[in-house]
């Protein structure tokens, strides 16, 4: 195994100080192949070895196919135009509309804005009015300005949406999933496998009427529901409780926050919720907590964190400093300025020491800190100097004692009431682990006749010790409401199809208590019902619609606002379904309509509680650490979250942060442990957990991922894999680790043994590597070698893909990102197309009517701030949803054929076995097409299928592309993607239809009759999801980021058509010229277009706009921010996307960086012997960067 070769080989071979995978770190031949070849697995010899006969066969076959295709030269099929019967007021066919709704996960809601195209929801964004995902202040200002009727203000308002994370963005794919359950089903008892194999049941079709007629809800009914917040859910709970008993409502979700609730009970005697104001915090310490990424208020946290980071560019920076201790790299840990990776049991010890160092009374630190002393000392010092301006936070997987101590520390530091507001927890102090255990007890005791399971999937994800699959069979009738026919449905007697959140009315409460409304965008496609409707049905009201249920529950709020007094919720007549609430007056209706329009009760929040936590107690006493032979396992959300998104191809194919694994859930192990056990990526291990007592140990076998930077002695187990019963996409993907969670705990002590077996892991760490040194230029000439030397310096020094500095270095040298660039634009073989900054000495005013003027009338550009990117992947899914990007499947990802236009690269620096930021840290970088003005792809395309438009977009013309792939070959950024197959039809092809098991690659449409376009193969339901503004690409076509050209064009047309209309009207009315719209008025203003990735970014690290407008944010960032640099600038591609250099704020410069690009021991130009052929500008005054 070659994870760690001798040092000499690193410096002589790889020469790279930043690395993306262990292969690259070791300079292995595979990594070199990945650098120099687009598709390393492609073997040209395979083609050359083809015999004459084979060649003739294939050539003949292609001629025949070509002949058949020619028969298609006719008018294409008839299309129909179906106008509305009665067009709703204000609706225009083909013009997208946005509606406010919400999404709920684990009982924590987030507001969404859903874009609908002719009645089809196709894109999910955040609700800007929801403070947890948006910016209500700015949204209100924009709405106020838009009232004037100005089209630009209206465009700005339309573009200004909040943030939706990757999972919320992927909701549309879930809604249009043809595998969703489409009918009420009964599961005949005779088809139940005596061994308990859930895949063998044969459900039968039934109907809602039959289900109601069956009358299963008589007495002794219990409910097991996913946590649901909101007024309608609360009302449903009350109604159910009134009829069947309040203590028969049970709640379970596998990724719960029980430990946190217990912790706050320890500290305050009751459940309280912490509301963080991260923007106010100067020092943040996250202990085993991914609070920028996996937290109900992660988006607000990330925004607050980034707001503070951006102050670094001010004259007087107040950049925060984040400390993190965790098991392995997470978006939060990697974004921290100081981080250590430790066993999870170590967190309590570290916190004890921290409390002791800070002087929190009542905490002594007995146990050994063992190497983390420096981290704790640094942190304690910083925290002391930032009293009342700091945040200490522990993760949901940490035990209650840790949370209690964290409360005490925050209280001691004076953070409570300033950076941390304590509020009530509306869910109360009930623990879900206890709730489901109590239900299991009732079931075993035979106290439940009918069990109603609302959502969730307890048979798959309940604590293993409860043996839930057996327990629910103890009930006489089990009714299950779910989006898919899954494990729990197979174990039930009735399966009811659930209405998707985009199809049904509902409500919920955000982390901060904002009441949100869930508005449907479409009728339930498969006749499903929502959870509140089914509860109403269970209580004997089968007729009231979801809308009435929600409207009725909200009448209390509507009443409050309209009349100033609280009105109790009353029930409507169940038979007629007519609302008989307390207030139906005009005022109430107005208020309600405003709520529906906003998607929320604006300004609602949880009441503040000023409570003082109990005196601190040491947290480490109760912790059980693993011994030297055991491993500490932590369960984290996997690509499918807790398994619910298993059938969602977008999420399954989303490279997970840092491991970049798709389509699997391997166990992550530390490099050192893997070396000891002789494990490589994909080797199988058995993870064993002792069941205690006489029970046999539980054992799960799964592949490993060798994870650089993970703490030794730990194993990270992503949940949600290995689903036996779900849709065709997700069945059998990954590995199920729920059996190891005996009591639903978030961490466990396990044994790990190497076993026989190997699973090839589809990880994209080595895909699309940017080659900073051009290892294989093969002596192609002086210019390239010159560029190479400039960029890479001598071997052993990194290239300049990543530029970074610490805050201290940045203050000292504001121009660090550019003073090492040796680019000399005067050494040009030809005229530069355009330099966008007129202040540049080489600026040539292009002829505005010339073909090479890439700035008429706008000049589009993008800036990506690496200092605030946390690598959360939301942009990747947003891009996928906006641009109709297909899912390709694991077999194709293994061949580097994933289609994501936007990828998040990570670069690690330092020793892969190190566990502190001093010796190993990570930088993340989103990369998509950078839209070079001097684009290498355009120069090699034989058919001009990729060319520039006049506004600087490097356009890709699908209908012209013949698929030579020369452009991808010539793109040093490796951002071009080729459709080898009709991937969109793949999800509906035999490959996925046969449930992924034992099937070789079958992309059937490829060999189907040539006239059968993928449009005919893609499922009718799934094709409703496509964005009609973006071409659906066929096989054999290259594609790449277009800067969301469809958004640009749409906005431009809207603005200019409005301008032209106003101009014509003004002329017709004979108004004086002063009242006519000006010529400039037709141009777009800053903020009118926001790209899909930009709207999805929680830290707002992407800016996009018109470089011709000096006041545009992107112009300011590109032209006035000294951190701005172009990727591979020395190649003179003149990229339109610029990156703002990474900034960190560690206490001392990191050791791993000592031979970095910045802060060299010797000035670079002395080491290079390129003579004086170019201008030495290192010491020149920093010029404005263009």
């Amino acid at each position, binding site marked *: 195994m070659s994870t760690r070769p001798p040092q000499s080989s690193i410096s002589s071979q790889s020469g790279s100080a930043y690395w993306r995978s262990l292969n690259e770190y070791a300079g292995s031949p595979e990594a070199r192949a990945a650098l120099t070849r687009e598709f390393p697995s492609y073997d040209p010899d395979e083609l050359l070895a083809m015999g004459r006969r084979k060649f003739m066969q294939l050539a003949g076959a292609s001629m025949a196919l070509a002949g058949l295709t*020619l028969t298609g*030269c*006719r*008018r*294409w099929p*008839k*299309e*129909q*135009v*179906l*106008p*509305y*019967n*009665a*067009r709703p007021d204000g609706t*225009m*066919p*083909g*013009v997208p509309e946005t509606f406010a709704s919400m999404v709920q996960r684990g009982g924590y809601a987030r507001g969404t804005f859903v874009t609908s195209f002719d009645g089809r929801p196709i894109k999910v964004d955040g609700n800007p009015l929801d403070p947890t995902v948006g910016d209500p202040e700015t949204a209100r200002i924009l709405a106020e300005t838009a009232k004037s009727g100005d089209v630009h203000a209206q465009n700005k308002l339309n573009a200004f949406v909040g943030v939706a994370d990757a999972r919320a963005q992927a909701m549309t794919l879930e809604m249009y999933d043809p595998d969703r359950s489409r009918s009420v089903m009964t599961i005949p008892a005779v088809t139940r496998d005596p061994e308990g194999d859930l895949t063998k049941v044969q459900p039968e079709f039934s109907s809602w009427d039959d289900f109601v007629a069956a009358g299963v809800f008589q007495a002794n009914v219990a409910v097991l529901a996913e946590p649901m917040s909101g007024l309608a859910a609360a009302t449903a709970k009350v109604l159910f409780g009134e009829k069947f008993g309040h203590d028969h409502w049970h709640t379970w979700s596998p990724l719960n926050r029980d430990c946190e609730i217990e912790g706050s009970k320890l500290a305050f005697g009751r459940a309280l919720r912490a509301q963080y104001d991260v923007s106010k915090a100067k020092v943040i310490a996250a202990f085993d907590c991914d609070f920028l990424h996996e937290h109900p208020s992660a988006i607000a946290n990330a925004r607050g964190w980034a707001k503070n980071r951006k102050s670094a560019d001010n004259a007087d920076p107040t950049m925060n400093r984040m400390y993190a201790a965790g098991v392995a790299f997470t978006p939060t840990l990697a974004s921290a300025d100081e981080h250590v990776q430790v066993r999870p049991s170590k967190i309590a010890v570290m916190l004890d020491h921290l409390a002791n160092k800070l002087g929190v009374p009542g905490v002594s630190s007995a146990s050994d800190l063992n190497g983390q002393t420096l981290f704790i000392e640094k942190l304690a010092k910083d925290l002391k100097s930032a009293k009342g301006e700091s945040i200490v936070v522990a993760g949901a997987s940490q035990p209650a004692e840790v949370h209690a101590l964290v409360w005490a520390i925050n209280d001691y530091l004076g953070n409570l009431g300033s950076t941390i507001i304590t509020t009530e927890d509306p869910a109360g102090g009930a623990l879900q682990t206890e709730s489901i255990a109590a239900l299991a007890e009732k079931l075993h005791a035979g106290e439940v006749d009918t069990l109603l399971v609302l959502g969730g999937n307890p048979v798959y994800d309940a604590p293993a010790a409860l043996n839930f699959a057996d327990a629910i069979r103890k009930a006489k009738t089990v009714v299950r409401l779910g989006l898919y026919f899954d494990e729990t449905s197979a174990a039930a007697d009735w399966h009811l199809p659930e209405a998707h959140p985009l199809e049904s009315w509902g409500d919920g409460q955000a982390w901060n208590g904002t009441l949100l409304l869930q508005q449907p965008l479409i009728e339930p496609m498969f006749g499903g019902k929502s959870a509140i409707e089914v509860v109403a049905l269970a209580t004997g009201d089968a007729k009231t619609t979801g809308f009435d249920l929600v409207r009725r529950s909200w009448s209390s709020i509507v009443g409050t606002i309209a009349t100033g007094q609280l009105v109790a919720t009353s029930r409507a007549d169940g038979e007629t379904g007519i609302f008989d609430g307390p207030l139906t007056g005009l005022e109430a209706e107005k208020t309600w309509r405003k709520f529906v329009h906003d998607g929320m009760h604006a300004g609602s929040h949880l009441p503040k509680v000023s409570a003082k936590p109990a005196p601190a107690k040491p947290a480490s006493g109760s912790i059980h650490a693993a011994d030297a032979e055991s491993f500490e396992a932590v369960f984290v959300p996997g690509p499918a979250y807790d398994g619910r998104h298993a059938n969602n191809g977008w999420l399954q194919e989303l490279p997970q942060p840092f491991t970049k694994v798709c389509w699997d859930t391997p166990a992550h192990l530390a490099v050192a442990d893997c070396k000891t056990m002789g494990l490589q990526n994909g080797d199988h291990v058995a993870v064993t957990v002792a069941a205690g007592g006489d029970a046999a140990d539980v054992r799960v076998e799964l592949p490993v991922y060798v994870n650089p930077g993970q703490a030794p002695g730990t194993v990270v187990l992503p949940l949600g894999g290995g689903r036996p019963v779900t849709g065709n996409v997700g069945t059998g993907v990954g590995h199920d680790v729920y059996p190891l969670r005996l009591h639903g705990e978030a961490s466990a002590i396990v044994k790990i043994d190497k076993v026989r077996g190997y699973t090839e892991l589809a990880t994209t760490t080595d895909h699309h590597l940017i080659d900073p040194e051009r290892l294989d230029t093969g002596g192609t000439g002086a210019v390239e070698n010159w560029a190479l030397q400039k960029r890479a310096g001598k071997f052993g020094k990194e290239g300049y893909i990543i530029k970074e500095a610490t805050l201290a270095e940045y203050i000292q040298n504001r121009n660090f990102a550019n003073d090492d660039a040796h680019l000399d634009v005067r050494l040009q073989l030809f005229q530069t197309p355009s330099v966008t900054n007129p202040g540049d000495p080489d600026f040539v005013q292009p002829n*505005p*009517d*010339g*073909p090479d*003027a890439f700035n*008429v*009338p706008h000049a589009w550009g993008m800036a990506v701030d690496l200092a605030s990117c946390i690598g959360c992947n939301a942009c990747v899914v947003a891009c996928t949803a906006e641009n109709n990007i297909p899912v390709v499947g694991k077999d194709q990802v293994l061949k580097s054929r994933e289609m994501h236009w936007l990828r998040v690269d990570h670069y690690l620096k330092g020793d892969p076995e190190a566990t502190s930021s001093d010796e190993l840290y990570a930088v993340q970088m989103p990369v998509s097409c950078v839209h070079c003005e001097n684009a290498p792809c355009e120069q090699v395309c034989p058919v001009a299928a990729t*060319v*520039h*438009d*006049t*506004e600087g*977009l490097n*356009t890709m*013309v*699908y*209908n*012209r592309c013949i698929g030579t792939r020369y452009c991808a070959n010539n793109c040093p950024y490796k951002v071009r993607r080729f459709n080898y197959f009709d991937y969109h039809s793949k999800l509906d092809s035999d490959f996925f239809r046969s449930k992924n098991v034992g099937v070789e690659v079958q992309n059937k449409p490829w060999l189907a009759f040539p006239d059968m376009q993928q449009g005919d193969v893609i499922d009718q339901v799934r094709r409703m999801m496509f964005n009609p*503004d*973006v*071409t*659906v690409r066929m096989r054999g076509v290259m594609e790449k980021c*277009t800067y969301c*050209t*469809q958004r*640009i*064009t749409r906005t431009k*047309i*809207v603005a*200019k*058509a409005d301008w*032209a*209309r106003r*101009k*014509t009207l003004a002329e*017709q009315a004979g108004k004086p010229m002063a009242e006519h719209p000006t*010529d400039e008025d*037709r141009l777009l203003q800053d903020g009118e277009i926001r790209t899909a990735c930009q709207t999805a970014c929680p830290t707002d690290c992407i800016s996009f706009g018109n470089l011709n407008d000096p006041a545009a944010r992107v112009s300011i960032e590109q032209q006035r921010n000294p951190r701005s640099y172009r990727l591979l600038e020395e190649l003179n591609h003149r990229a339109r996307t610029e990156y703002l250099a990474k900034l960190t704020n560690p206490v001392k410069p990191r050791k791993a960086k000592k031979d970095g690009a910045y802060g060299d021991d010797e000035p670079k130009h002395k080491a290079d012997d390129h003579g004086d052929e170019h201008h030495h500008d290192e010491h020149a005054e920093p010029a404005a960067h263009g």
Partner: protein
Amino acid sequence: MTPNAPPPGDPPRPSPISRNVEKFIFPRWANYILPLLVLGAIGGGMYAPAAVYLGLNPDNLNLNYRPQQPIPYSHATHVGQLGMDCTFCHTTVNHAAFAAIPPSQTCVACHGNEPGASFAIKPNSAKLAPLYESIATGDPIEWIKVHDIADYAYFNHAAHTTKGVGCVTCHGRVDQMGEEGVYQVQNLSMSWCIECHRQPEKYLRPADEVTNMTWSPFDEPEVQQAVAAGEIAEGDEQAAQLYIGEKIKAHMQINNKYYMQACSTCHR
């Protein structure tokens, strides 16, 4: 008698040698193969390009396409005789990409068949049956798309009509198309689009004349003045169009030809 001797009375069998030689001699008809091949090559050489050219020519594929519509709606009656403006029904044309076929409700505004309808024109006509069925069921009328461009080309009506591209320029004299239905008068090929994108001045008209089916550049007072001043020859429609077109192009800030021909202008 040897067993191999032929039975008496049978004709002598050909010797094995002659049989083998015969195998290598082409039959007489084989003499015609070569000339046939040559003829075929010449014929095919002429046929193939012709077939490809004519078969792929958008003029042959698209021009005069006139599908039968569910209702024999006559633009000649409504526009030609009654003088209704295009935007009376196609309301979204100046605001959206689609000119939008009117909803059924628009039709029954005049062709009402319910008791008490303020306008009930020909409510009993059999031709209107699909309309009343649509109103009764709530289902749309299934019109057949006439002007159907490729899905990768994104045409936007508002971008054109607000700046002075007349309806008649692309759709022809709709006011003369009767109950047989609307048909395609332009081939809607890319080269046809590009022709105007290169030189929009050849086709532009004042924005308030867009729906006018009979507009001529000589209707414009500016042109009439120029004719009076002798700048444009009497009856030189091309010169008159260029004269007014150039003015509108500048007036409407039509982008330069490089912008207009950029791929992203129409393809996404």
